[in-house]
């Protein structure tokens, strides 16, 4: 029998190490709507069907972006989702390289955004609705990894770690 899982299915709680019953887990529920909408964003960004943008490629982009940002627990989360995905062994999109470049640039310095980056995605075969989905995913990850980092710092500050 597997050991009891102390966490619920909220990705941010898991990545920040907040289990139900922890004071900070409870404090986060002060904004229950934010918690719900954040998890629903994560789910929609990965799973809503988008022409030309598979869930497996989205997971590859997410794992790459989190690794670049040194968001270790989130990178593990997306790698594990990819490893468990039925399409994990299917060939990635020919546009994946362009997606990873876009994701890395957007994550490390939002000032790098320009029209040429959008045109590169179009040339790689992405249509505008797929570009919107990809940009939303990458921009969301910048939010998600900062919430996790902030909660981890708050957790350390409660336990007296500097």
């Amino acid at each position: 029998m597997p050991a009891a899982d102390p966490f619920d299915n909220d990705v941010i709680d898991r990545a920040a190490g907040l289990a139900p019953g922890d004071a900070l887990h409870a404090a986060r529920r002060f904004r229950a709507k934010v918690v719900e909408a954040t998890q629903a964003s994560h789910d929609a960004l990965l799973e809503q069907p988008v022409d030309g943008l598979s869930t497996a490629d989205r997971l590859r982009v997410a794992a790459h972006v989190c690794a670049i940002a040194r968001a270790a627990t989130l990178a593990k989360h997306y790698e594990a989702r990819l490893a468990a995905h039925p399409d994990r062994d299917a060939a990635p999109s020919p546009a994946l390289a362009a997606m990873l470049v876009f994701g890395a640039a957007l994550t490390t310095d939002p000032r790098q955004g320009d029209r040429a980056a959008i045109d590169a995605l179009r040339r790689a075969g992405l249509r505008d609705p797929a570009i919107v989905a990809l940009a939303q995913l990458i921009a969301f990850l910048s939010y998600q990894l900062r919430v996790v980092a902030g909660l981890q710092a708050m957790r350390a500050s409660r336990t007296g770690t500097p």
Partner: protein
Amino acid sequence: MIRRNGFTDETLEWRSWLEPLALDDASALQLEVLDESHAQSRTSPYYLTLAHQPLMLRHRSAAYNAIMYAPGGLPRAERELGAMVVSVANGCVYCTSVHAQRFEQLARRSDTVEQVFDDPASAGTTDRERAIARFAIAVTERPDTLRADDIAPLRAVGMSEEEIIDLLHAVAIFGWANRLMQNLGEPAGATTS
């Protein structure tokens, strides 16, 4: 009107580099999500661009609106201060103009806005504002090395756990909002009002 260092609190337009959704082509779901996202979204190139993915926009708007507008917790002017500091640090001229205006409306003053435009990392007219600005910069620029020492100054100026969570959300979601504004289009000239 404040213009400094490439930033302004004037009302700007925003132009999409993608093809915004044409209202005539919008599905019932797209119209519903546009209307629940923002009062003027049917005429906004930004929302019409994001409406290509209505369910992604729906959950983003739910998170954004709860973070920036929900009652209680951190005073709204301070959420706007966090949003403005992040927008300047990220170089998002459009977002900065919107949230400088909101801060001015809620706080009924603009001294802090001038300071943020000049140097967001040292901005603030009180210890509490300075702690908020410094935290917003830390979360924006070095999320990978955030630690308890970054939380202590917020507690020292009297912020509760719930207020710190509100600030963290407001600051983090501008990591999201700025990246959309800066990577799907660009600010256009000021509208004459």
